């Protein structure tokens, strides 16, 4: 039933400044790319991608950006939150050699997919993009998987200087990948989509309320519900969606340009 289940926070981990990971008991199966609705009682209920997938334990990794994430940021081990889900479709993980492009907290969404790909004997290259060195996280975790990691920072404080898309375009020219999977700022993902012809999947963020396909809050294009039909969409679908990379809708349903 789609009603929050109250659970205690198992662990809180600081990743970098303003970014934390929270884990909780959740024995049901979850696919990489799916998300939960996290209820912070008295504050809000917000969507969060699964960032850790263990047998009985799942985790989310988030950046403090406003009311709800700040409240979540303050919570400690043993504090109670409500969880419903997992929701959404998750990534389709096929192909022998996959390029992941993560911008900002998008890396959190990609990480379980990277781990899955490696476990299934495919190889992966992961581009992690951030504004600056201090905002990079999950580098160690992904290194442990044995994938190739490429870093880009806007200010060049680490790795490639420039955007993750620039770096991706470079590498796509040099190497043959079976597909590109991306999560990050929508404008970045849109540029990436426009610059490649190989199979493409992007994870989208839209304002969510019901997360079960009823309220229509998260719809894009011709009634595609990001909460159910997404949050992962393939390149073909995205090319037909005018909204992609152009505008999202706020809580009132008004268009907001990126």
């Amino acid at each position, binding site marked *: *039933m*789609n*009603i*929050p289940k*109250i659970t205690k926070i198992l662990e809180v981990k600081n990743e970098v400044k303003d970014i934390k990971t929270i884990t909780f008991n959740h024995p049901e199966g979850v696919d990489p790319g799916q998300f939960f*609705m996290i*209820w912070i*009682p*008295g*504050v*809000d*209920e*917000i969507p969060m991608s699964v960032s850790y997938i263990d047998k009985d334990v799942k985790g989310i990794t988030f950046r403090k950006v406003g009311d709800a994430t700040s409240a979540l940021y303050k919570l400690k081990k043993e504090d*109670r939150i*409500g969880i419903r889900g997992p929701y959404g479709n998750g990534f389709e993980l096929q192909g022998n050699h996959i390029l992941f492009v993560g911008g900002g907290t998008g890396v959190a969404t990609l990480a379980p997919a990277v781990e899955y790909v490696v476990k299934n004997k495919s190889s992966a290259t992961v581009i992690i993009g951030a504004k600056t060195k201090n905002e990079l996280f999950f580098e160690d975790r992904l290194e442990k998987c044995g994938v190739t990691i490429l870093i880009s920072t806007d200010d060049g404080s680490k790795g490639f200087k420039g955007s993750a898309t620039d770096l991706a375009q470079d590498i796509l020219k040099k190497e043959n990948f079976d597909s590109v999977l991306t999560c990050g700022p929508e404008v970045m993902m849109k540029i990436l989509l426009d610059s490649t012809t190989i199979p493409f999947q992007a994870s989208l963020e839209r304002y969510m*309320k*019901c997360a*079960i*396909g*009823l*309220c*229509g*809050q998260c*719809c*894009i*294009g*011709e*009634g*595609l*519900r990001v909460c159910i039909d997404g949050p992962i969409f393939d390149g073909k679908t995205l090319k037909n969606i005018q909204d992609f990379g152009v505008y999202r*809708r*706020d*809580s*009132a*349903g*008004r*268009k907001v340009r990126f």
Partner: protein
Amino acid sequence: MLPLADISTNIGSLPLKNPTMLASGIMDEDAGSMKRIIKCGAGAIVTKSIGLQPREGYPNPTLIELEYGILNAMGLPNPGIDEFGEEILQLKKSKTPIIGSIYGANAKEFIELGQKMEDYGVSAIELNLSCPHAKRYGLEVGSDPKLIQIITSSVKVNVKIPVFVKLSPNATNISEIAKAAESGNADAIVAINSVKAMKIDLDLKRPILSNKIGGYSGRAIKPIGVRCVYEIAEHVDIPIIGVGGILSGEDAIEYMMAGASAIQIGAGVYYRELDIFKKIKKEIEQWMDKHSYKKISDIVGVAHL
């Protein structure tokens, strides 16, 4: 085998190819969503209820699933009538009627909203006088027969398209309120909006919805909706549109026998997917063929003895 039954129907002067309509508030805040529902076979679309100003709605949680239904208090989020025009205009070519749902705090607001909707090109207007959880709007306006009559007649004299009035079951005497709408020259009654209800989380000792109280819809409320439609049908002569817990063709038939000329589907979209409209159409046809009914009007109101 091709169905023999003709499932077209009329809500007064408004003809529908089939009696299944999308209820207000479900995937109807933007043109794209409404287009998708039209493709899924709906006979008409009612938009999200729109007000004069944009409204963000309540913080989440705004919607949860209960054992036998859905509980929501969205808080009437909507982009406001001016920005909403763009959505309606994109649907201009649609052959499926679009019905503009509006909410307001008084007759003046309803008139302005109704006129703008008419300008955008909707086929009819639905006055939401029944939202169970929005302060100053909805139910708080819609439980006073006098006010209902004034609002309805004010909108009526200011627009040319049909005006429907959507009523709440959270009223002591729904047929009295329906009569007030009829005397205000409403073209049809829509019943019911969701039922005021609450769910408390025992672990956290607090209501789950941020607004605490929400509106209960889905299977559990069908017997309440059928009763309302039946009671209203005994007291008014204008057409009735039945809503509340309709998930199958037989549910739709039950509402029609109670007096509904068409029906709306809300929570059913969750329980039976977006193509619930096609499914219910087919189930209605099959039921009619099996029971030798030729047209919808042969069913409407037959349970009144």
